[in-house]
């Protein structure tokens, strides 16, 4: 379970351009939940991700991950419990290594390697139907953007993090690959039981895949609700208008 209590982050404190990025944000995510974060630019979404990965520390408030109070952790140690996939496919994979070597690295958790991770990675590769399981000796730099991003998702998932963060991970992909990567995202959530927090601007993705939606504006949670998928186009239009 992830708990953020009254988180406050101020950039350029006591300067003329002081900006409150998060202003008392509260958010609780249960184990196995799939949360979609939406909100306009500058709302505090990126700052929230930076807090969750330990990149920045809040001025005030508590960050509790699985009952553990996170205070000034070394980012690489926190990453043993928190996985992240970025918008750019190249940030999540190792271009000079083969697909197989990437899976070996992905199945490393801290100082330990566990072979189950590699097995799970192969299973996920097969489920993608991209033919990657037959190209295990291929260097990752030879793959397309969509293939790289799918692999980045798998690498992040097979470390079995307590929380998997997706930072607009489909933004750089074409529609066909968006579909495949989103199906993989759901699979990781439902079949592997991983807790996922996804940040997106893409309302089509929200409509099609979101379960719980959290809206952030001006550094606080303005709406938090379970999304019931409408059955008709009228319903879709109404939801889109309300979002």
């Amino acid at each position: 379970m992830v708990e953020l209590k009254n988180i406050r982050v101020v950039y350029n404190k006591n300067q003329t351009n002081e900006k409150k990025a998060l202003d008392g944000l509260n958010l609780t995510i249960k184990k196995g939940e799939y949360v979609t974060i939406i909100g306009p630019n500058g709302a505090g979404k990126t700052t929230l991700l930076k807090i969750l990965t330990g990149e920045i520390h809040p001025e005030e408030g508590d960050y509790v991950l699985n009952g553990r109070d996170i205070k000034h952790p070394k980012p690489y140690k926190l990453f043993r419990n928190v996985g992240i996939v970025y918008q750019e496919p190249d940030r999540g994979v190792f271009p000079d290594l083969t697909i197989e070597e990437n899976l070996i690295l992905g199945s490393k958790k801290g100082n330990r390697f566990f072979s189950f991770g590699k097995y799970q990675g192969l299973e996920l590769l097969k489920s993608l139907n991209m033919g990657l399981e037959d190209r295990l000796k291929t260097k990752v730099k030879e793959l397309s953007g969509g293939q790289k991003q799918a692999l980045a998702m798998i690498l992040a998932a097979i470390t079995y993090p307590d929380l998997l963060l997706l930072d607009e991970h489909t933004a750089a992909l074409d529609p066909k690959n968006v579909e495949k990567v989103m199906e993989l995202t759901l699979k990781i959530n439902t079949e592997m039981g991983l807790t996922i927090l996804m940040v997106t601007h893409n309302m089509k993705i929200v409509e099609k895949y979101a379960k719980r939606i959290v809206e952030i504006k001006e550094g606080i949670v303005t709406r938090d609700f379970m999304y019931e998928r409408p059955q008709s186009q009228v319903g879709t239009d109404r939801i889109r208008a309300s979002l």
Partner: protein
Amino acid sequence: MDLIGIIEQGLIASLAAIGVFISFRVIDLPDLTPDGSYVLGGAVSISLMYVGVPWILCLVFGGLLAGFFGVLTAIIHNKLGVNSLLASILIMTMLYSINIRVMNGPNISVPKETAPMEEARYTEKTKLDDLLGIKSSTSISEVDTTKQTKKTLSPFREKSGYNSTILISLIVLISVFSTIIFLRTEFGIALRGYGGNKEGIKNLGINPELMSIVGLFLGNFYAGLAGSLFSMYGGFADVNMGQGIVVTSLAAVILGEIIFGRFHLFYNMMCPVIGAVVYQILLALAMRYGYTIGFQSSDMKLVTSLFIIIVIGLRRVEVRKWLNLKTSE
């Protein structure tokens, strides 16, 4: 021209090139420490020979101590946030003074095969010593000619019983294959992954600082090993012998990459070895025939740097594509 001698020197230089290959290509952290750690390797190993340490251990200690200074560069880079290039320049500058301390002077020669009687003749008390009031440590009458000297002699001296070509080749082969095996282990894969995507390594919960420390240790270990071997082979270590070793090693790596391309780990590891031998042959040819076009041996560093700039420039304009050469780059 002694081709075997040139190949031997090329093979010794290839160890330094392997070190530069690890820091520049495998972990992608530009490191100039080898300019100092190469000399340190030679200085330490020759100094240890004077106290009777077996030559093979002298080589290993020379490499290990050089590797330690690579670790220092990595720590300065990680903990103080200093760019790796600047951190390595600081350590390299520091090593200039340390090397003079280790050698107790600007240079040191390997222990010579002198009989105790002959040695005592050099250190015998002279009339000048009497005038200056200096006490001689030995006199011929005190010398026990049956006593064996404790100093270790170079394996590359005549009548040592070793074939220098086989010995050097063996050391290079062991270095290359042990590095290939290491880079194929899970830790080695993480090290190579760090070179390609430092942020990605951190995101998997692997300590990136450890990767830079191990990488720069290895890079400088090989530079130190090359320095040790070169000093034993050449019979001396000099404080200036490491000047430009990074640039020439980089040129060797690039030459090797032109020959092999950058495809598979095994071929990648052969790049510094073949490149260094080819570079040494080119160097010998330039020195032998270069005078006909007004070339001096001192021009070699100018030509080497120009070569690196031209190759990098050609890569930018993707000349391989123009020539329709298949490449994975």
